[in-house]
């Protein structure tokens, strides 16, 4: 009696273990293509803007003071329901300003061009071609969208482990240390608000591209920001990259940022 009960428990334990490994095995199976990949068809709107790898060029020559970039940041904050926190430690930032020495710390020098030293630089998620954050995420809550290269987040899958924040070398990710909703000035019903305990960041306005609109920051920038397909030689960004000397943040780390700066 005693031994048969023990035997049952042992078997039950082993079976339970088997169940938990099933999804893991599935994942490997899909990777090796032994199982027919389930066709996921994402229907694009007729007006949707398409690209292989979206990229941005920031013409910093056109930026002279905070006034030039405030409307850009404000446009983003407004449509994406970014809360305003008093506590700097809990700040949510999608696109914001930094001094040159913080945006490009490895290029900082004591004898810098005065204008550049004091002018505000816009920084945001670089939507890297080889993103470290995507590699780190244990649930694929953040992933690089194959259709257009946007590094995007599923706020509902994120477990809030913040591994992506440690992985990102650009400080582009924010964590909801508390419920953001009471701190949103005016809620935009078109875009989801977030819950406490998840990470978020710039999404290159994926929701606007889907309906044929340019990102909000680009639209509000008076031509300071340009946006287009990095892999299309005819695109506006490629034209700018061809005709101007540009730099990227921490290029030496190999993440291949898709945001370029004309200095």
């Amino acid at each position, binding site marked *: 009696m005693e031994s048969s009960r023990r035997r049952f428990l042992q078997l039950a334990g082993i079976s339970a273990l088997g169940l938990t490994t099933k999804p893991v095995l599935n994942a490997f199976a899909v990777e090796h293509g032994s199982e027919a990949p389930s066709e996921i068809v994402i229907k694009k709107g007729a007006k949707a803007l398409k690209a292989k790898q979206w990229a941005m060029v920031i013409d910093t020559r056109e930026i002279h003071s905070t006034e030039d970039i405030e409307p850009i940041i404000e446009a983003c904050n407004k449509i994406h329901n970014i809360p305003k926190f008093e506590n700097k430690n*809990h700040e949510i930032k999608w696109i914001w300003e930094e001094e040159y020495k913080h945006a490009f710390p490895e290029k*900082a020098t004591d004898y810098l061009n005065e204008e550049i030293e004091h002018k505000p630089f816009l920084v945001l998620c670089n939507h890297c071609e080889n993103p470290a954050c995507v590699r780190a995420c244990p*649930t694929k809550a953040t992933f690089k969208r194959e259709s257009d290269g946007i590094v995007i987040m599923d706020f509902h899958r994120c477990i809030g482990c*913040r591994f992506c924040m440690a992985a990102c070398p650009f400080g582009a990710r924010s964590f909801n*240390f508390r419920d953001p909703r009471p701190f949103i000035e005016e809620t935009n019903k078109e875009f989801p608000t977030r819950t406490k*305990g998840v990470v978020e960041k710039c999404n290159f306005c994926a929701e606007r591209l889907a309906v044929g609109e340019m990102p909000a920051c680009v639209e509000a920038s008076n031509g300071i920001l340009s946006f287009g397909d990095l892999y299309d030689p005819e695109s506006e960004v490629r034209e700018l990259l061809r005709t101007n000397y540009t730099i990227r943040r*921490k290029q030496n780390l190999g993440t291949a940022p898709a945001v370029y700066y004309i200095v």
Partner: protein
Amino acid sequence: MLELAFKGGKSYWGWIGALLLVIGGAFGLYLTQIKLGLGITGMSRDVSWGFYIANFTYLVGVAAGGVMVVLPYYLHDYKAFGKVTILGEFLAIASIVMCLLFIIVDLGQPMRLFNVPLYPTPNSVLFWDMIVLNGYLFLNIVIGWNVLEAERNGIHYQMWLKPLIYVSIPWAVSIHTVTAYLYCGLPGRGFWLTAILAPRFLSSAFAAGPALLILLCLFIRRVTNFDPGREQIQSLAKIVAYAITINVFFFLCEVFVVFYSQIPEHMDHLKYLFVGFHGKGALVPWMWSSMILMAVGILLLVNPITRKHEGVLAFGCVVIIIGTWIDKGLGMISGGFVPNPMHHVTEYIPTGPEIGITIGVYAVGALVLTILYKLAVSVKEEVQA
């Protein structure tokens, strides 16, 4: 065998009761954290991991340190350790339980924990950490329990345990290696971006784990009829002596590379920890204390005269445990975040609730350890009698 845990004296039950009280209080704090979010901790946008992850890292080390009694006994047939292997295995179980709890209390959305096995992501080190930690917990429970039960019944343990025991040895190394890989594979975090991080983690683990085991052995000898043995304690002490020396050596290797190369991204973190950076230096006195404590530990444990004196040995172990805990628990994690990749200096100091929850997790570990050690010691006493 579990019934043995229910037979205890007044002090045993008093201790259990006290632990339950602490756990209850900490659970209350955790409910507040669930309600208000991780904003009640000292963590920030810039220092996004803090005390929880630091203590997690330290305890992975303590768990891995258990292998230092398992390996000599099962692989080199060092018979003396047969008496204490169970103590190492049960210490590993309690440590892993604490590790898993620290991960859970650190999550922003703990209810979504099972997204990790539901959406398995082999490119994430955290995914592998889940596998190795749970695997190590499972191995130690199965091995520890069955070997102890066999000892109680006066028989040799089942043969099917043998392969599991052999697997558990490299597995112990894997848990701390994978935990180091969480940090050392991240671009833009110069402090962790070093191939010696995993070896450093392991060396400090093999010092801290056995040092704690020595203290536990001395305690068990004092309060029970089971004597883990003088030879066993002395052998453990030699292991601690080598491991802590190697740990400090690895650290000095790191210091040389960082300061001789003079690469700011790597150097600034060590500067922050040891001399302060841009006027911020909350950890400076801690880090120097850690260095002094580890140096004192080396002197006391390498020297045979002091090592053989069990009172001094116990003091040396305490010193090493505190020294390695500061090094790994305080410096290693926040040191990697300060300055942040944009070269802003935001310091991190844990808050009261955060420390309270941490103490609660340690209390759970102490409870698990108490119950498991009660079983082990009761069986050993039975067998002796």
